[in-house]
């Protein structure tokens, strides 16, 4: 990777300072806005570390969706300020400092020669069905992780759905109290310009994932961002986008592909190089749809189901 430059020192210090400030901020709103800022700076750090795939995921999910979820929750929990300025608690501070110290010591005593896996990935990249190493690891070499991750997403959706519908305290977001199009000309124009663009960017990232930074998770997160935007501007998402089959599609299809390999006498999720590309494209498309549906549903919840 590149050399350590003044930019990196500034970026690292800014990340630590932002983290400190957002934890100590007396106002929760300020804390969340600083968290989104932190996420955007962190994605810049990922670029500096040569990890643009992680940068995309961080910007779309870490900063964008998590920030939107937190801001939305803050608005729905009015008058619940439980604390004043942050206090230092010594036993906890000592524990956290000790954890940090151990981690710092581990970093400083890493063996000098990197014993990574990039060589092993590069050697078998041809057999994976895609040309981008990160996508190859995600969907083929470590397919188990990704399968279980889609399972975790599905479980989170199930748990949120099981929490049941609740009236939102804000009348403007209650579907039963809201006019159909409350938006006003500026917001309406913005949404009509941005949402098609987000769909286009999502489709590009999905397509690019096979040979360049991008892929199902980033594409799904961008599409979910479009869903959140629609939700916030009062446009109801189509009922089909929240339907259980759409939400479970990615997990079910990936599991089916894995089981089909086992049924054909290979190991679970072991893809033949000749078929890998087609199967991975199929899995990626299904995963994108499911990730977008779950992330948008986690934001909207069951609130809009009447």
């Amino acid at each position, binding site marked *: 990777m590149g*050399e350590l430059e003044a930019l990196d020192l500034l970026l690292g210090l800014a990340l630590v300072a932002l983290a400190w400030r957002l*934890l100590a901020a007396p106002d929760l709103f300020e804390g969340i806005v600083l*968290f989104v800022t*932190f996420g955007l700076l962190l994605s810049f750090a990922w670029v500096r570390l040569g990890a643009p795939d992680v940068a995309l995921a961080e910007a779309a999910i870490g900063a964008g969706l998590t920030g939107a979820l937190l801001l939305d929750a803050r608005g729905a929990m009015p008058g619940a300020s439980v604390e004043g300025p*942050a206090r230092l608690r010594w036993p*906890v501070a000592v524990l956290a400092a000790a954890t940090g110290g151990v981690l710092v010591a581990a970093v400083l005593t*890493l063996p000098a020669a990197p014993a990574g896996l990039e060589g092993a990935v590069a050697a078998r990249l041809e057999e994976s069905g895609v040309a981008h190493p990160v996508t190859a690891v995600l969907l083929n070499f470590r397919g188990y992780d990704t399968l279980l991750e889609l399972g975790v997403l599905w479980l989170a959706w199930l748990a949120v759905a099981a929490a049941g519908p609740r009236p939102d305290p804000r009348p403007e977001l209650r579907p039963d109290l809201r006019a159909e199009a409350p938006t006003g000309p500026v917001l309406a124009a913005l949404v009509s310009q941005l949402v098609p663009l987000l769909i286009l960017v999502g489709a590009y990232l999905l397509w690019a994932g096979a040979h360049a930074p991008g892929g199902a998770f980033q594409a799904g997160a961008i599409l979910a961002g479009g869903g959140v935007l629609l939700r916030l501007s009062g446009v109801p998402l189509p009922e089909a986008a929240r339907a259980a089959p759409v939400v479970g599609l990615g997990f079910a299809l990936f599991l089916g592909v894995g089981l089909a390999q086992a049924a054909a006498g290979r190991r679970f999720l072991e893809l033949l190089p000749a078929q890998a590309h087609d199967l991975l494209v199929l899995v990626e498309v299904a995963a994108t749809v499911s990730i977008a549906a779950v992330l948008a549903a*986690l934001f909207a919840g069951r609130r809009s189901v009447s």
Partner: protein
Amino acid sequence: MTLATWYALVGALLAALGLHGAVVRRHLLRKVLALNLAASGVFLLLVAPGARGPTTDPVPQAMVITGIVVAVSASALAIWLARRLHAETGRAALPDAEDDRA
């Protein structure tokens, strides 16, 4: 110091800060914020040591992308539990949080 070591050290600091915040802060949304910070620190610790060669190791990158999605799933669930608690009780912190300051 190299680029990789620097960002790994930043990650270690963020993990410690987040851990402290997650225990000390009482508002449940602040706990979610702090845990996300700690997770970001751990992600940096995973990827940065793989950036010491000419290219960045794709395996920890893939693990961290998985981790980011799992983190947002867990955060969404935690936020919904917090909202549910607030809707039921009007509180944004766990009931015994005030008494455990020993």
